[in-house]
């Protein structure tokens, strides 16, 4: 792993294009949301395997998204809502 700054990490032997840190970070949410196509996803993953600058940043964003997702919309109660809904349904029925 290397500190690669904004330059593409070296060591590409596969012939695949290498992403810079800037290009990888621009795709962080699409990567974590599973919204990249396979080639782009692999390109980001290859960058992360080599770049110690971006890896923790992606990890942080993953923790953030997991936290918000687990929070969810949740359940909330509102006093009297169930009674008002039942009244509405009774009126609808009649």
């Amino acid at each position: 792993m290397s500190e690669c700054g904004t330059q593409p990490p070296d060591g590409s032997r596969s012939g695949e294009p290498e992403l810079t840190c800037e290009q990888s970070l621009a795709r962080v949410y699409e990567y974590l949301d599973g919204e990249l196509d396979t080639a782009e996803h692999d390109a980001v993953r290859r960058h992360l395997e080599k770049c110690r600058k971006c890896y923790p940043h992606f990890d942080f964003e993953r923790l953030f998204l997991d936290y918000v997702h687990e929070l969810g919309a949740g359940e909330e109660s509102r006093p009297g809502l169930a009674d008002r809904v039942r009244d509405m349904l009774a009126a609808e029925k009649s």
Partner: protein
Amino acid sequence: MSIPAEQRQREFESEALVHLDALYGLALRLSGGDEPRAEDLVQEAVLKAYRAWDRFESGTNCRAWLMTILRNTFINQFRRQKARPVPVEFEQVAERPSSEALYEADPEGQIFDRIIDDQVIAAIDELPEEFRVAVVLSDLEGLSYQEVAELMGIPVGTVKSRLFRARKRLQERLYDYAVEMGYLR
């Protein structure tokens, strides 16, 4: 074969109304914490569900069915409203260095174990509606970019940029809370 009205209502009450708190929770987040608006939304969605109850397939996921009706009800209202201007501060959020402040101060994300959920919910509620709706549908409800784009009637690229800006804004707010609470200095 039609079901007698009383039996129909009993079935609906026992299968559907048990999800009222979940419906209200989603309505509250979509409407940014506006309680009367959220209640109206729940009432409208429940009425639609009740009228469509004959078409609900017993044994399938009633909660998911109701949540979809509520989401669509909200989106119909949302899309009927005129386009709202995006606040300038949101247009510029990508350029604001403070959006990276949380990562720089807490790269390991310890804040996510310590922050109070209500503070994050308040921060989501405070997002401008176009951004909040994208976050609620994508991040809280787990819809794909394409699903959010279709629901909101906007291009996928716009969903991406709204999510980016909204998430950075939430991180800014989390940073402010963390400093206020003394978790970060």
